[in-house]
């Protein structure tokens, strides 16, 4: 039998203390490994908060692109009110300040039984927990004739990047008096107010540069988010410029003809000078291939931990999930990501658990100096995410209040992107 010395003992006691506070529960390795697939808003936030809250977790972020362009504020770029570069964010701070291992590759497949992820370059990553945040994909054959080639002629610009630049070029080279057709998608889709914000800001651009141009919105729905606020603003700022046709009026958009740049509805064909076609959506491809989505095309999750209801050990956040009352917004993705990161840290290191605070605020521009906002908090109730407190700007607000909101929105963009990308 060995007799303990005081020094050895306190060293051991110290070690036990560290174990209890920080060490991964998994034995036989120095650190628990979390792999995060998708370095968009949801994925980057999970990686950052996991890395910041638990030194005993090794975080790897898998994202093919060298930099991320935000969809939010891309409508300001389309209106010529912001340079494209201002939407772009790199991963250097996440790697350097937070020690996250950033791998610029695409994930090709997930093997939940082996707990590995196969990357496109042929290599493999092992994980103790996996987080998947792939954003959205477009539904196959949602609109006849709208294929990859057609997207290069009639862009969707619903993932920010080359598509957004293409739409801006087309708007810039359009002649005054041209018709801009915007095809708005069916529910649920990424960012409910965004198609209508886009119409508003493109109208502000036309008003400045092409005052005879018209905007036609062909909607798959019969009503839309914050409709009263938008229609009030369209009458005030751009009288006669924007026309919105609900599905019950057109019978819905049935096909696209890229050769003639036309949008075909049940009853008519609309020939556009520039067309922005936003198709029906579902969870990103990887989620579909990995069996994380159900028949709805979206991913069911536990509303407290954001663990998949279909694959244990795999968590999902952001647009890909069935979020209950939570809309598909960057703010919600960021809010879910924090709750998910804290839940994973608690599981792997034994850190304390607290009730999560889930929230959404979207600042939406009606004109460059006229913005409105909403504020909603959510709670898990009976396995679903329910909204509990909800406020939204009102039609009769003063122009000073709206100007202030437009200024606050700028501050939000700065703080928010800082929160996500460091």
């Amino acid at each position: 039998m060995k007799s303990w010395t005081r020094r050895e003992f306190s060293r051991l006691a110290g070690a036990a203390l560290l174990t209890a506070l920080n060490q991964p529960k998994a034995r036989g390795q120095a650190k628990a490994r979390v792999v995060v697939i998708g370095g968009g808003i949801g994925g980057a936030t999970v990686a950052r908060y996991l890395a910041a809250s638990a030194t005993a977790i090794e975080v790897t972020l898998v994202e093919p692109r060298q930099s991320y362009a935000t969809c939010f504020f891309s409508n300001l770029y389309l209106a010529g009110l912001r340079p494209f570069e201002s939407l772009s964010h790199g991963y250097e701070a996440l790697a350097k300040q937070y020690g996250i291992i950033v791998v610029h590759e695409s994930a090709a497949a997930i093997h939940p039984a082996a707990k590995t992820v196969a990357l496109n370059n042929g290599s493999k990553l092992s994980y103790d927990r996996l987080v998947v945040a792939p954003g959205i994909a477009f539904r196959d054959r949602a609109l006849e004739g709208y294929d990859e080639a057609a997207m290069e002629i009639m862009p969707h610009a619903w993932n920010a990047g080359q598509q957004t630049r293409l739409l801006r070029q087309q708007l810039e080279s359009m002649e005054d008096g041209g018709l801009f057709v915007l095809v708005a998608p069916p529910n649920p889709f990424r960012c409910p107010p965004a198609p209508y914000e886009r119409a508003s800001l493109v109208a502000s651009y036309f008003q400045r540069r092409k005052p005879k141009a018209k905007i036609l919105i062909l909607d798959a729905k019969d009503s839309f988010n914050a409709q009263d606020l938008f229609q009030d603003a369209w009458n005030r700022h751009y009288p006669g410029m924007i026309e919105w046709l609900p599905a019950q009026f057109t019978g819905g958009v049935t096909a696209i003809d890229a050769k003639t740049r036309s949008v075909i509805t049940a009853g008519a064909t609309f020939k556009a000078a520039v067309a922005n076609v936003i198709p029906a959506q579902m969870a990103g491809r990887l989620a579909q291939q990995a069996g994380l989505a159900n028949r709805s095309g979206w991913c069911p999750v536990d509303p407290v931990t954001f663990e998949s209801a279909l694959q244990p050990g795999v968590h999902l956040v952001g647009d890909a999930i069935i979020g209950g009352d939570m809309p598909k917004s960057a703010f919600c993705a960021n809010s879910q990501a924090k709750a998910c990161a804290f839940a994973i840290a608690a599981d792997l290191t034994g850190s304390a658990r607290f009730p999560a605070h889930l929230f959404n605020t979207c600042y939406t521009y009606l004109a460059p100096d006229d913005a409105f906002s909403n504020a909603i908090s959510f709670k898990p109730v009976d396995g679903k995410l329910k909204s509990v407190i909800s406020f939204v700007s009102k039609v009769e607000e003063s122009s000073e209040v709206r100007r202030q909101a437009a200024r606050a929105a700028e501050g939000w963009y700065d703080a928010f992107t800082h929160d996500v990308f460091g």
Partner: protein
Amino acid sequence: MRPVARSAIATGLVLLVSQSGAAAEADQGAQLAATCASCHRLDGGGTGIPSIIGLGEERLTNALLAYRASESSNHIMHAIALSLSDEEIASVARYVAKQGSNPR
């Protein structure tokens, strides 16, 4: 050696309990402050939305209580504050007040 060992264990346990108690408090503050960080930069920088760094615990607490009581000044902060209990307001105010100003 036995008595020494036992007291070492006892010391270790006391340490463990008190450290994890304080750590849990700080953790709760940190997790709540993470929700603020979606709009307020916690390094003291930023424009358009007022900074909450350098305000002090009392001012933070009072501001949150006032936002919770009334929608009139700002519906966003009203909704945020309504979602916080008294204990959570105390905890987040204590945590945020400890963050130094270090604009990057």
